[in-house]
């Protein structure tokens, strides 16, 4: 059972909380037997053994062992508290990432209109891909950044220049790519070529500057 809007991981936690712990009957019997036979512990003796004599304990009361016994309901409440804390931390982390993502989105859109490959710390960079193919009816971009999936990144015709264009956010580094023009794979004539042609045709390379360069 899950709440209508709750994320999957929260459902997993809820299920884990609700799951009944099953123990083999033989194990249960042996455990109860062991517990019944065990000597009753004397907490005061234990304290003296572990932390020194009474005099020392009197001088340092903080050294006394404090035992906390939780009833079933208190234990459940403690578990719920831990889960809430964990969920809170996760939520805050995700919110923070979402804010960064949104900031990146806004920032890169603005930069795309000005300078396309200016390095910025810890941000992906907008790279504008262009191809002149006046007679093409469909142009896609494939590469190491979109798992070579021709359905992911389609170019559109720029009314001003007549070129096929698309802007993609890429992390700093070296990216290999190609265009798919009406089903035919072709390298970018305006970009450096990748030297590997393992599969019979050459790819292009785009380099996105890192903050260090």
């Amino acid at each position, binding site marked *: 059972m899950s709440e209508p809007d709750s994320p999957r991981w929260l459902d997993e*936690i809820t299920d884990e909380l609700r799951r009944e712990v099953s123990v083999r009957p033989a194990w249960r019997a042996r455990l109860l037997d062991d517990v019944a036979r065990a000597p009753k512990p004397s907490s005061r003796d234990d304290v003296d053994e572990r932390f020194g004599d009474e005099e020392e304990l009197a001088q340092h009361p903080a050294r006394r062992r404090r035992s906390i016994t939780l009833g079933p309901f208190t234990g459940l409440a403690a578990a719920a508290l831990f889960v809430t804390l964990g969920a809170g931390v996760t939520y805050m982390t995700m919110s923070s990432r979402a804010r960064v993502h949104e900031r990146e989105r806004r920032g890169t859109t603005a930069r795309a209109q000005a300078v396309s490959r200016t390095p910025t710390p810890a941000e992906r960079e907008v790279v504008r891909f262009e191809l002149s193919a006046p007679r093409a009816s469909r142009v896609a971009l494939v590469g190491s950044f979109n798992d070579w999936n021709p359905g992911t990144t389609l170019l559109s015709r720029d009314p001003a220049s007549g070129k096929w264009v698309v802007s993609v956010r890429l*992390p700093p580094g070296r990216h290999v790519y190609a265009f798919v023009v009406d089903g035919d794979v072709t390298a970018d004539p305006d970009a450096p070529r990748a030297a590997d042609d393992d599969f019979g045709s050459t790819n292009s390379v785009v380099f996105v500057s890192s903050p260090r360069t």
Partner: protein
Amino acid sequence: MIVRLLALVIAVASGLGAAQAQGVDRTLPAQLSAPTRATLERLIDSARVAGLPIDPLYSKVREGVFRSADEPRVVVAVQRLARDLGDARAALGDSAAAEEVTAGANALRAGLHRADLSRLRDARGNKSDHPLTVALVVIADLATRGVPPAMAAASVNELVTRNVSDGSLMSFRQSVERDLVGGRSPASALDARTRAMIEDERRRP
């Protein structure tokens, strides 16, 4: 139970982080047969153990599937790339970044020797915070366009020694390419553009 729950929460949180940091899909395409997948997994695992970048290997597999290459060819391509990555790592040193190693492997594929890569690393000298990725991409590109690899490596070495920026290296590449398209010989184009770039750098305050 509480420990298990906390572990679950931490696992969920860290899993989210890893998924966001990871750029390449590190799974093998389902179109591949089970024996091919097993072979590729072994190969990629070996590369991982050797400390080589593995994203280019996954990417190579996907490229092969995209280009409808037959499975043995995909395996050979991944094997070859893994070997080149290893050679590039050996030439560039253990401190080389993944991007540098990948670009180095590509440069080897374009006809450079390991010694060329090592010379480039030495040319950078103690400016170890400056990656050689662009320099390697430029050399590989020039070699792909018909410039003798040793000549391309020597010119770019010269520029790297003089601390030429990555942007200038890319301009250098474009200038040489324009000259080649215009009918100039590779040796002549390279020589003229290298001199011009060095002169520009000298004039710079």
